[in-house]
């Protein structure tokens, strides 16, 4: 039951905390504080017994025990809660914890607007219990009285109607579900508007009175907050209608309400306004009278300037007459909401620390901030008994953290506050207060002040290793500092920052802190940096994170740490100073050896380094080979885009290869070197996956195009040899499983999965290549003996290629191979020994099962005649 009570009252407590103290004069403040205290007790089951005994003591001998007899202020509530079903109790219990947390959060940012709160309440406080509406609506007598009647008749009519609805036709609706109830209230809201627009003001008033009467019924307590919202909506509507009507009666209705003075209200408007007040003053029951008068509170401004200010305390005092604490507190909340809406904010001057604290929590942060100096003075005057000052400064700091005090007061505020804070003995109390003020300091001051604050914190927290118990607070200090120092060179140049970090000696916390530092760094660091201060500090921070990785670390954890470290590495740039960059990479490599993604990142960095460095070399073959090598390394480290870049660079470098190069002081043809390189390149290309944005076999085509365009040596058939050596590559590429692959790199085999289109593409390429070779062979045939010799050897190598890689089951290909064989033997330039061995090999092949076509072919191959 205690929990359930907490459930019902927690919201109220919030409201009271946040609202109640705003507009009450000192004299009336004791009420809310009394309520607040009992509500606070209700919050914690541990304290309930205590509060009960206290209440018992105050009551004296009136009741022997705090049973559910409704003899004390709070008891009707508990008696009502006896019927709570276990389910809602369970829900309440879970809600309790959440709400506590919310409470802490809610106060932080700003005064929550009612509109937001409203929806939240409606969503949260629901019930499945049956509800009832008890309305006493008069019959349709509420029509406007005939125009001929005298004033007294009118008044009499209206009063009769009022009586009528109090005694007359009573309509009771029982067993309504919550939705029915809400609908019904909405209907009432509609009929209020209708009545108003059809000039049935009395009926409108009647509806409002009846509705507010519902608020004195707390029978389904879970629903009460929602009911409160629904009904105050109606009241708001009513208040607005009345206000607007009176405003429209004023001669110059265009005057904005804030510059409004009662002097410019004409008599008719005033009279109408007075009429409303007199009418409402004669409402018999307390709760409706209170609510309805509160609803038209702002109409007071038509009558006198100080009207609202005078009425508010009176209405507040009136609430004391409400016996049910829940109803009373909600009434108070309503009044306070109106009070804020009307723009009345009164300072509550009190020397009670508890009150002052509540005031600071309740008021808008801007309000507190604007008067921060006054608050400090008040806090100083405060009686410290029962409520320590550091809590007060904590509350003040919380307000100042979200709103800015006047600029010229800021330093003195900080000085005054810190003077008190630094004297707090208990490290726990100290840090909880200091933590709050860090935000204020960071917002308005430079690193010097923040540094001072940090050193003060270190001074307080180091003795007896007090920091061990306050990691959450210390962590929050860091979190508050970080958003304000985007420039890390400033942050790390704060002398006490790193020593502060050293206080985090528990590994998990330490890593947390490092992580948040890195997050901020990555988020805010725009430009790459080479600042040694930042690098050293961050390297240290990253190392801390890295070192926390062990066998038990989860993959996710590893991934996120790696990401952070990578983000750091990416931001390090020494510009053109590649040596520095490389040495940084080496250092990083040594430091972060446990995290694979980091290593990859480092390889990236190295790759980038190579990419930048290679062009500076003069030897073109070194360049080519290094590109190839770097590409292979990059590929091996899954740096696909880097690898791509290397290969592309290599391809585009090809045309620049001179035909003659100097080797060991002699001029030599570059051709053999080039062929070597290209063959090497081709074999690498097998595993290079296609770039997703480029056409199929982009690199292979690129390379072949380059080969075609290259100005080869006159009479050289190097080009054709390249074509021939490309054929095995293409053949290999069309396999389902490639001969070799690089771990963790998906080659084209996986990317295309032997897609027919892909294979067709390869076939086309092969055809083109073979066509080129055959053309070349043809042209060679026209030449002299040298040409024929070349022809023979080329034809033989193409034959060998087809034999090794071609599908000779294909008749055309088979025939082509035979033709090639014959061509190579035609002029007798063929090396006999090779031919014989090849034929033997073919025959051997043909004997293997399924190779019948080969043996067939062997029969058709004739050896060269020795003639």
């Amino acid at each position, binding site marked *: 039951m205690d929990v359930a009570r907490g459930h019902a009252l927690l919201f109220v407590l919030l409201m009271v905390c946040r609202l109640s103290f705003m507009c009450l004069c000192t004299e009336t403040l004791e009420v809310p504080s009394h309520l607040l205290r009992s509500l606070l007790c209700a919050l914690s089951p541990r304290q309930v017994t205590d509060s009960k005994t206290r209440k018992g003591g*105050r009551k004296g001998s009136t009741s022997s025990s705090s049973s559910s007899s409704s003899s004390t*202020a709070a008891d009707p509530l508990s008696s009502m809660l006896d019927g709570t079903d276990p389910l809602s109790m369970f829900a309440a219990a879970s809600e309790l914890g959440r709400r506590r947390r919310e409470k802490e959060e809610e106060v932080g940012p700003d005064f929550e607007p009612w509109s937001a709160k409203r929806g939240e309440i409606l969503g949260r406080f629901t019930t499945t219990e049956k509800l009832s509406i008890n309305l006493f609506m008069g019959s349709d007598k509420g029509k406007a009285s005939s125009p001929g009647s*005298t*004033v007294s008749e009118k008044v009499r009519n209206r009063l009769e109607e009022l009586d009528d609805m109090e005694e007359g036709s009573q309509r009771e609706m029982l067993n309504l579900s919550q939705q029915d109830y809400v609908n019904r209230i909405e209907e009432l809201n509609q009929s209020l508007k209708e009545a108003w627009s059809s000039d049935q003001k009395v009926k409108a008033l009647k509806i409002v009175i009846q509705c507010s009467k519902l608020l004195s019924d707390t029978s389904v307590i879970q629903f009460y907050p929602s009911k409160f919202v629904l009904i105050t909506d109606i009241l708001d509507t009513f208040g607005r209608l009345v206000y607007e009507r009176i405003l429209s009666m004023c001669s110059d209705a265009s005057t904005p309400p804030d510059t409004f003075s009662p002097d410019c209200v004409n*008599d008719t408007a005033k009279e109408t306004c007075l009429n409303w007040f007199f009418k409402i003053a004669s409402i018999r029951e307390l709760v409706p009278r209170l609510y309805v008068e509160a609803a038209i509170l702002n109409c007071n401004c038509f009558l006198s300037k100080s009207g609202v200010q005078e009425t508010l305390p009176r209405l507040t005092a009136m609430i004391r007459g409400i016996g049910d604490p829940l109803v009373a507190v909600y009434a108070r909340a309503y009044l306070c909401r109106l009070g804020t809406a009307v723009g009345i904010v009164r300072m509550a001057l009190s020397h009670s620390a508890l009150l002052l604290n509540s005031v600071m929590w309740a008021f808008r942060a801007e309000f507190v901030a604007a008067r921060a100096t006054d608050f400090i003075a008040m806090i100083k005057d405060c009686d410290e008994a029962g409520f320590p000052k550091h809590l007060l400064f904590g509350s003040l700091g919380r307000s100042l953290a979200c709103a800015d005090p006047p600029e010229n007061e800021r330093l003195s505020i900080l000085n005054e506050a810190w003077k008190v804070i630094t004297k707090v003995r208990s490290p726990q109390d100290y840090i909880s207060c200091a933590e709050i003020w860090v935000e204020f300091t960071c917002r308005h001051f430079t690193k010097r002040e923040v540094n001072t604050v940090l050193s003060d914190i270190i001074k307080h927290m180091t003795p007896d290793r007090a920091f061990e118990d306050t990691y959450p607070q210390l962590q929050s200090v860091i979190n508050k500092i970080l958003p304000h120092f985007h420039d890390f060179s400033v942050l790390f140049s704060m002398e006490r920052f790193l020593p502060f970090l050293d206080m985090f000696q528990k590994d998990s916390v330490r890593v947390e802190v490092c992580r948040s530092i890195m997050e901020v760094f990555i988020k805010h660091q725009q430009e790459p940096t080479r600042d040694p201060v930042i690098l050293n500090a961050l390297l240290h921070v990253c190392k801390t994170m890295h070192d926390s990785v062990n066998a038990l670390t989860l993959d996710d954890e590893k991934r996120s740490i790696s990401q952070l470290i990578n983000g750091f590495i990416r931001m390090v740039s020494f510009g053109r100073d590649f040596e520095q960059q490389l040495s940084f990479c080496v250092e990083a490599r040594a430091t972060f050896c446990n995290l694979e993604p980091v290593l990859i990142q480092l390889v990236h960095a190295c790759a980038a380094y190579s990419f930048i460095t290679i062009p500076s070399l003069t030897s073109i073959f070194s360049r080519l080979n290094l590109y190839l090598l770097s590409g292979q390394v990059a590929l091996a480290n899954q740096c696909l885009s880097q690898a791509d870049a290397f290969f592309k660079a290599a391809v585009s470098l090809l045309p620049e290869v001179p035909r003659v190069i100097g080797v060991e002081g002699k001029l030599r043809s570059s051709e053999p070197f080039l062929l070597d390189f290209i063959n090497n390149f081709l074999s690498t290309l097998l595993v290079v996956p296609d770039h997703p944005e480029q056409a199929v076999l982009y690199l292979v085509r690129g390379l072949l195009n380059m080969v075609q365009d290259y100005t080869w040596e006159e009479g050289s058939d190097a080009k054709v040899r390249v074509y021939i050596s490309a054929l095995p590559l293409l053949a290999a590429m069309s396999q389902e499983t490639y001969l070799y692959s690089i771990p963790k790199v998906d080659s084209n085999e996986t990317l295309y999965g032997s897609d027919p289109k892909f294979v067709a593409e390869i076939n086309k390429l092969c055809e083109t290549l073979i066509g080129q070779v055959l053309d070349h062979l043809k042209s060679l045939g026209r030449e002299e003996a040298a040409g024929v010799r070349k022809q023979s050897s080329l034809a033989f190598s193409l034959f060998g290629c087809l034999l090794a890689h071609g599908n000779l089951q294909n008749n055309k290909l088979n025939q082509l191979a035979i033709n090639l064989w014959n061509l190579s033997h035609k002029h007798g330039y063929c090396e006999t020994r090779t031919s014989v061995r090849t034929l033997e090999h073919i025959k051997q092949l043909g004997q293997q099962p399924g190779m019948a076509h080969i043996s067939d072919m062997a029969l058709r191959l004739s050896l060269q005649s020795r003639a």
Partner: protein
Amino acid sequence: MSLSLDIRLKRANKVYHEGEALTGVVVIVSKEAVQHQGISLTMEGLVNLQLSSKSVGVFEAFYNSVKPIQLISSNIEVVKPGKIPGGKTEIPFEFPLHVKGNKVLYETYHGVFVNIQYTLRCDMKRSLLAKDLTKTCEFMVHCQPQNGKLQPSPVDFTITPETLQNVRERTALPKFMIRGRLDATSCIITQPLTGELTVEMSEVPIKSIELQLVRVETCGCAEGYARDATEIQNIQIAEGAVCHSLPIPIYMVFPRLFTCPTLETTNFKVEFEVNVVIVLHDDHLITENFPLKLCRV
């Protein structure tokens, strides 16, 4: 043919004092021109006394045997016989509120047995064939502020079972102790009745605390006089088991028309009282009565 006659007083609250003049316009709205035999205004102030059936016989009460007392009656002509053009015509007037002789203008008061009412009537006399038009409107008279300084004299009270009179079974009464204070029993009619009330202790929870405003009207006539107390309004100031030892404000606005400064004449009297009514949960009703003296300053 639509023809309407209306009186519009300049003052929105229609409150006048002796010696002042009622100003306003007579508004005639008509589609066509109207022929008339003159338009006049009549001011009338009357005290209507009614004997309650409790004090006198049913028949006398029924027949309203007491003659109304005329306080003022005067007539002026606004427009001479003639023709009023079609459309809306506004005829301004100024009608001084003067009493003849040594008569006194009492304040407007609407009660049960005593009614003091002032009316302004506009008559448009018309030819024999057409009906005369009449429009009446009530205006309020407030008497001149009474002389003499009003000293607020707070009244403290304590209600316990022992202080009660008219108790049937004193032993059955639960224990309670209620202290309170009225800031004044001589009240200014325009100011609310204020004070506070504290439930120091109550054995039985309180159900409701109310302020009951009561009028006491006395009509004197040849056959003797009748004195009747009736409720004007009842204002709840506390509902449910209120917090003990916490002062609850007493606050009641005196309703207009239904209250007037306490009045004592040779023929009738109008007085007011307030009852503090405490209803306990076991439906015990505890009432404390305070006579009030209302005045206007």
